[in-house]
């Protein structure tokens, strides 16, 4: 039986951490229990949460797709005509851009899953750049339309366009606008991920209150492999309720915080969702003429 409690984790640490459990009064060593301290993270839970959220996003756009279908049905001819106003080439370029970004997003995740942080970063940055390109494109597209006097409530629309066409453009601006907002949010999320993946990771061990009771009177120490004392911590007295130990590492391919993989996967799901919505918007507005 070992005389210390070791906290184990998949990431190798240079120094072994031990909490030596001693009776306060007699200072005599006693046997200890091994505590398996699991880091609090539930992969499946995180995924369920994300999918539920994506579902609500789909419904959010779903409401507008309903409007689109109703008005398309009601004003089939006007929608037909109005679609000619949109620039198919611009739309196609943007579709290619977004599809490519979905690919690089997936590659970035795959790289991180294989612990290749650098490659993952590269793909992530490409994804962000593609997102920005999409927005730039959209900006030129919108401003061209606005310059031609085609925008909600514009005098031109009121004067020389039919109701159906007006609605077409109303929906066009509302739906691509909201989609664009989602791209902006997506870019924000991916930028945060870039930071998360590369920041100094920390690992935290929490010891449950029930287990803390068993540790009362012991002392927190750090020793090296030879048993030499490197650091002496406080004694775990009666007032202590919880113990948590936090380690800071350098972010290397071995030590980066692996919960980021789940986060990146979820960000990727979001990005794909934004992509899929565009896949529907593109034909509905640009192609069905």
């Amino acid at each position, binding site marked *: 039986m070992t005389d210390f409690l070791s906290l184990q984790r998949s990431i190798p640490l240079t120094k072994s951490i031990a909490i030596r459990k001693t009776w306060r009064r007699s200072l005599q060593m006693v046997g200890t229990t091994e505590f398996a301290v699991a880091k609090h993270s539930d992969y499946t839970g995180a995924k369920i949460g994300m999918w539920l959220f994506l579902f609500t996003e789909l419904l959010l756009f779903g409401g507008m797709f309903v409007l689109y279908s109703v008005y398309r049905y009601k004003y089939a001819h006007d929608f037909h005509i109005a679609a000619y106003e949109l620039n198919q080439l611009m739309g196609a370029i943007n579709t290619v851009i977004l599809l490519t970004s979905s690919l690089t997003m997936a590659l970035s995740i795959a790289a991180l899953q294989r612990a290749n942080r650098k490659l993952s970063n590269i793909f992530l940055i490409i994804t962000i750049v593609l997102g920005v390109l999409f927005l730039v494109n959209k900006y030129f597209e919108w401003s061209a339309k606005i310059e031609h006097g085609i925008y909600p409530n514009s005098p031109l629309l009121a004067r020389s366009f039919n109701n159906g066409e007006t609605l077409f453009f*109303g929906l066009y601006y509302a739906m691509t606008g909201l989609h664009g907002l989602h791209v902006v949010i997506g870019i924000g999320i991916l930028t945060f991920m870039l930071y998360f993946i590369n920041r100094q990771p920390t690992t935290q061990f929490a010891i449950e209150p029930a287990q803390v009771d068993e540790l009362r009177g012991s002392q927190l120490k750090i020793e090296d492999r030879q048993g030499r004392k490197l650091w002496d911590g406080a004694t775990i007295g009666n007032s202590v309720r919880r113990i948590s130990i936090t380690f800071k590492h350098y972010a290397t391919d071995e030590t980066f915080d692996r919960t980021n993989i789940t986060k990146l996967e979820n960000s990727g799901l979001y990005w794909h969702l934004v992509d899929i919505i565009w896949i529907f918007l593109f034909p509905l507005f640009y192609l069905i003429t």
Partner: protein
Amino acid sequence: MAHDAAIATTHPVSFLEERGRFTGILSWIFSTDHKRIGILYLFSMLAMFLVGATFAFLMRLELIAPGKTIIEPQTYNSFFTLHGVIMIFLFIIPSIPAAFGNFFLPIQIGAKDVAFPRLNLLSWWLYISGAALAIYSLVSGAAPADTGWTFYAPYSIRTGTNVSLTVFAAFVLGFSSILTGVNFITTIHRMRAPGMGWFKMPLFQWALYATGWIQIIATPIVGITLLLVIFERAFGIGVFDPTKGGDPILYQHLFWIYSHPAVYIMILPGMGVISEMIPVFARRTIFGYKFIAFSSLAIAFFGSLVWGHHMFVSGQSYTADVVFSLLTFLVAIPSAIKVFNWVATLYKGSIELESPMLFSLAFIFLFSIGGLTGLMQGALAVNVHIHDTSFIVGHFHYVMFGGTGFAFFGALHYWFPKMFGKMYNRKLAKIAWGFMFVGFNTLYFPLLVIGWMGMPRRYYDYLPQFHTGHLISTIGSWILITGILLVLYNLGRALIKGEKAGQNPWGGATLEWQTSTPPPLENFEKIPEVNRDPYDFRGIAVQ
């Protein structure tokens, strides 16, 4: 083993005493502990409830006699709008799930917290931001919104009042509600303690689970609808504007696709707490557990398909009218199943008339009136007669206030000792309940009557033949508000100088009563193993 003994006798530190990173108010508004968040919601909601009730009180005062009494017509329009918005979006929708669901969902399934604690805190922040926006929309802009809480187009896109901001507030609140739903569903799926199978869960959990699904499925639709109203007002995109070819009826569809299911977001958690309290105070295991559990899901499902019953006179097709009317009658079945099960649970029980039980009994009575008047409205011919009359106002107050509102106050009395570790004056609680119950019926029953006679809803003035009804109703509002103030006084006093509450003052069998009062930070000293049914009272003692 003197040392061990010393540990065993130390009193478990409750989440209220636990010291985190911050102290004072910061230790609350930045806490990710689901219990603290639940209490944050509770207090913010009670505050909003009081604001909403104040508007209502003033409206009732205005209606005490025909003609102008205290306020201008335009002010009246703003008052019923803000009263509606506040009561619906800021009080009744979040009420039971956000306050008691947050506090007790993890505890009742033996978990330490919800699945996403930080998201949970974000939900509360969104809630508070929405509340702040709603209040701000009152005092900023040209004039407070005057559209009614339904924001019907095309009026809502034309009126010069501050509709955009109010609508945006509702949008933010919807977002908060969605995040809570995501959190709760994930928690129930992933974090049940060992042994806590789906059918070992307290029925409150089933109600929260069904509610979570409605929140997720329905809320985004109203979210986008409200956004479109803002787009209409700001840019004039035309989708709801008849002059541009848009169709206002579509607005009504999209609005009610959410807002009818939303009434089940309001009522299901109420039914959930009633299912908790009835067995405890009848000291009998619940009758028909699975029926109640599945009827929650059935209500959630059928409730999503009946929205058209709000539009019988709006010009939707006759076929749609008939289908929606039929479906509306179908939703009544699972609701009635619950009522029968509660009554069957009471039968031959040894009933203790503590205040939570009184609220539960009132719930059954008032909800039955609300439900039956709802059925009357579901019948096509009757609906044409009573559409937009104060019969409707009576009906939905019976359901929302008499149902969910009373369940909320019942839950408050039931769980207060556990949440704060203090016991209130039980006798005063019963008296306050009496005021609320009598006041409630005096206030709303006359509305059913004069509505049937033809008194329109949302009207500032009325014909003399409705005077008696309005007078009685206004007197009822005074009695009701006295009851509410008594409740708040009693609980407030208990917070400050109530006696200490025991671990299990009512003899409940669900997990929250097996942990200390108030619960420790991580809810249990040790994650419990569940091996008994939630309503098995054998061997449970009042402590």
